[in-house]
């Protein structure tokens, strides 16, 4: 296990990058702590794969350094890095048995046979592969093959991190849960560092201790799943995490009033001054989970008309037109409203976030807390 | 480690170069010889013509029995390619879209025809085609070559047709296409690459075949492959002439490879050869 540090790292696929847009990976300064499970989350094209390839040593970053426990490995190849990788689709040695597959990375490193046997059996037990050890790998299911791939990384006691590149893509939904549980258990038992690449927020949130969110070649936020949900630092994190994502409503500042739809929020002088200094348009952000329907509260509730209802069993997602833009609210089943009804949306004051451009404006929790 | 990686490309290059020299040396020799006079050929080894001449090629282009044999070959090879494609396309479509009584056996039986040595057919073909008065016609050779080209064409085309989703057929019918119109205007353009690859293989195998072509022709339709054999076995061999004739047999193949090169590359990419 090791701590991995990325120092002023940048990567471009062009020989002479000029503008920021030429970089597939914009400047990153990041420490991947020992023994934690990380998820690298982002849509396709966000730079996840570039980051992964730089970590694994397939790509050599054009600028900056990669340090493993302080050792500079920036220019080392994959085999010299003590990194293991599980790919999107199962990559195994089809002509070998499961046992031979698991033993292979140790055999190539000239580890004594008895030691290999012991380690292979230990890891096979961890992964639930013991009964399959003598079977040919070829005939197994995709899920079992992914376990073998993972096992080939785990058998190596010196491994610094195991990179998993969307490893559940080709797995049947029914078996996804089981494999996810195994991943989590293995991570807890063996304390191995997993770096899990995915575009699925649920996978990221359930598996990882820390989520690294990427968008457009940039690391936009690093944090625990709870943190990302509660305090998105970037608009992208707001709408990429959570189902449905955060509501963003363009708003204007008029003296000490913040105008959101037809509602005017009274701000204290310090906040008003702070917001006035921001460059980039302001927007008002609130998660659908923190909106309810209720009676009008002048200067706080947001009036609008229900335009759509989605029944999700024990709860509803209600879309409300607030004059030009829409807000989604997640409300309990007991709340009654029909399409066309005029309603008032009541936000939880402490869950309101104000963004300037793409980034959040740090404000005290009580800014909007007063009137509810 | 680093030493190994720096050596490897060099070793690769040497191996590849040696192999290409092995492939090209006989062709080089044939080509060089075709530009030499017979005297120069028999009097000593020269790596390059001392007395450069086009006389051998001139002879071929001005002697009817020579140039007409190239035309004969070209005619039956083209005929064969067209016939093979025309009959193999619907069959390949059937194999790729339907299951029917005896389909598996039929497919295997077709492939056994690719395994039959042409020498086995020499005798019955001669008698059989004589009975239909087809001996010494282009069409006889074209049809005879179908025995190995049709199974091959069905096999290759079936692979390409399997890659076309069935929903395309259904959409076309819903849009009111008749079957022949659908086949000609939608399906055929979709598998252009497959047809290119198939045409290439039909052309190649028909062009290089000797036994059947020689058996079924006597004079009017005699192909270049047979003419070469005949001249060759005569006395007082004209080496330069034979070399020139040999070089000329390579040209149609190179032309065809050039025309279908993109289709073949795509065929390769699709994992079918």
């Amino acid at each position, binding site marked *: 296990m090791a701590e991995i540090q990325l120092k002023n790292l940048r990567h471009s696929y062009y020989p002479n990058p000029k503008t920021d847009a030429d970089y597939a990976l914009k400047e990153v300064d990041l420490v991947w702590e020992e023994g934690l499970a990380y998820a690298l989350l982002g849509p396709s094209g966000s730079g996840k794969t570039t980051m992964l390839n730089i970590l694994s040593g397939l790509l050599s970053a054009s600028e900056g350094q990669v340090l493993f426990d302080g050792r500079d490995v920036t220019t080392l190849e994959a085999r010299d890095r003590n990194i293991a990788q599980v790919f999107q689709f199962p990559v195994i040695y089809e002509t070998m048995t499961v046992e031979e597959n698991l033993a292979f990375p140790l055999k190539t490193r000239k580890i004594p046979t008895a030691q290999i046997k012991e380690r292979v059996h230990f890891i096979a037990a961890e992964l639930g592969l013991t009964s399959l050890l003598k079977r040919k790998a070829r005939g197994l299911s995709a899920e079992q093959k992914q376990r073998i791939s993972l096992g080939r990384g785990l058998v190596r006691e010196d491994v610094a991190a195991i990179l998993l590149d969307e490893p559940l893509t080709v797995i049947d939904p029914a078996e996804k849960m089981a494999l996810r549980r195994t991943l989590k258990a293995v991570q807890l038992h063996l304390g191995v560092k997993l770096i899990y690449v995915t575009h699925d927020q649920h996978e990221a949130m359930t598996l990882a201790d820390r989520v690294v969110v990427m968008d457009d070649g940039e690391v936009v936020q690093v944090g625990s799943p709870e943190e990302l949900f509660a305090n998105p630092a970037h608009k992208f994190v707001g709408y990429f995490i959570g189902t449905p994502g955060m509501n963003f409503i363009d708003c204007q500042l008029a003296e000490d009033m913040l105008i959101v739809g037809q509602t005017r929020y009274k701000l204290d002088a310090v906040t008003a001054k702070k917001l006035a200094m921001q460059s980039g348009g302001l927007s008002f952000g609130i998660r659908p989970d923190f909106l309810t329907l209720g009676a009008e509260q002048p200067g706080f509730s947001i009036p609008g008309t229900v335009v759509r209802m989605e029944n999700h069993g024990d709860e509803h997602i209600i879309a409300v037109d607030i004059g030009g833009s829409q807000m989604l609210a997640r409300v309990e089943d007991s709340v009654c409203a029909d399409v066309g009804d005029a309603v008032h949306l009541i936000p939880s004051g402490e869950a309101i976030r104000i963004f300037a451009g793409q980034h959040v404006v740090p404000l005290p929790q009580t800014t909007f807390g007063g009137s509810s | 480690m680093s030493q190994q990686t720096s050596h490897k490309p060099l070793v690769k290059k040497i191996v590849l170069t040696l192999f290409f020299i092995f492939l090209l040396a006989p062709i080089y020799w044939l080509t060089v010889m075709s530009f030499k006079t017979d005297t120069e050929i028999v009097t000593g080894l020269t790596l390059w013509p001392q007395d450069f001449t086009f006389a051998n090629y001139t002879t071929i282009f001005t002697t009817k029995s020579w140039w007409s044999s190239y035309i004969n070959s070209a005619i039956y090879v083209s005929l064969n390619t067209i016939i093979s494609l025309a009959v193999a396309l619907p069959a390949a479509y059937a194999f790729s879209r339907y299951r029917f009584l005896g389909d598996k056996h039929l497919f295997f039986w077709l492939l056994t025809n690719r395994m039959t040595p042409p020498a086995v057919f*020499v005798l019955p073909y001669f008698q059989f085609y004589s009975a239909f008065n087809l001996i010494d016609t282009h069409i006889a050779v074209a049809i005879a070559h179908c025995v190995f080209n*049709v199974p091959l064409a069905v096999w290759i085309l079936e692979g390409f047709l399997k890659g076309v989703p069935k929903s395309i057929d259904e959409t076309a019918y819903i849009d009111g296409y008749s079957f022949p119109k659908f086949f000609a205007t939608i399906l055929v353009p979709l598998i252009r690459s497959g047809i290119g690859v198939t045409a290439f293989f039909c052309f190649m195998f028909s062009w*290089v075949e000797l*036994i059947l072509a020689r058996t079924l022709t006597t004079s009017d339709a005699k192909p270049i492959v047979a003419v070469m*054999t005949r001249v060759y076995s005569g006395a007082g061999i004209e080496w330069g002439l034979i070399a020139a004739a040999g070089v000329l047999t390579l040209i149609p193949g190179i032309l065809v490879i050039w025309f279908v090169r993109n289709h073949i590359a795509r065929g390769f990419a699709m994992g079918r*050869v």
Partner: protein
Amino acid sequence: MTEFNNRAWLFVLPVLVIVAFNAIIPMMTMVNYSVQDIFGPGNRYFVGREWFQELLGDNELRNALRRQITFSTLVLLIEVPLGIMIALTLPKTGRWVPFCLIILGLPLLMPWNVVGVMWQIFARADIGLGGAAITALGFDFNYSRDVLDAWFTIVTMDVWHWTSLIVLLSYSGLRAIDPAYYRAAQIDGASRLQVFRYVELPKLTGVLTIGIMLRLMDSLMIYSELFVITGGGPGSSTSFLSQTLVKKAIGQFDLGPAASFSIIYFMIIVTLSFVFYRSITRVQEGE
């Protein structure tokens, strides 16, 4: 699921007609001849299994078969490993790729007897570059007099002619391997040899089966090249099944024995191909 539809036979009909015309009717003629003794039109006798019995005890057929198997084994043993090796050394991308593929295609596009003519010339010590080169190295090389030289010439010629086929097939197979397999092997610390043994070879078995089958079938049918280059000689040392058959059918016009020979020949090829195919697929499954 594909539809079960017997109307599909309509689509297959043209193929059936043309192949029946070319294969079924001639084959029936052969079976018919093989059981008769024919002296001329209207002058034939039913002889039953006689020709078959005679042929099976015939030394000419047996020797031809023995030489045929030696030849086919030899060329397969050289062409398959050589072809795989060349495919591994070919560049995967770059401007040289089309150039390499065209050079590889050249031998395949040459009419078979022209291949024979070319090698006949090339291997001659007096007017051929290859023969002269071997002579210059101090060997007394003459393929029309010496059996070993003749074999060396025809095997070299076949390797020249057909290795490209294995190269092209293996190359397309290698290109189809996902880069992730190489990456995984690299991460596991595999050597070049191990990458070949555990990553590349298993992925090549499909195309190699096709390649080896085609080479086996075609090497069992070889005729045109040898007809020109050695004519089966010296003596009958390079006379294989096709040469022996054509000599019987056309040269001696022994219709009955030639027909029986054809049928036996056909059976040998189908059997050998089938046995070979089964053993390859069994090895693959057993892996």
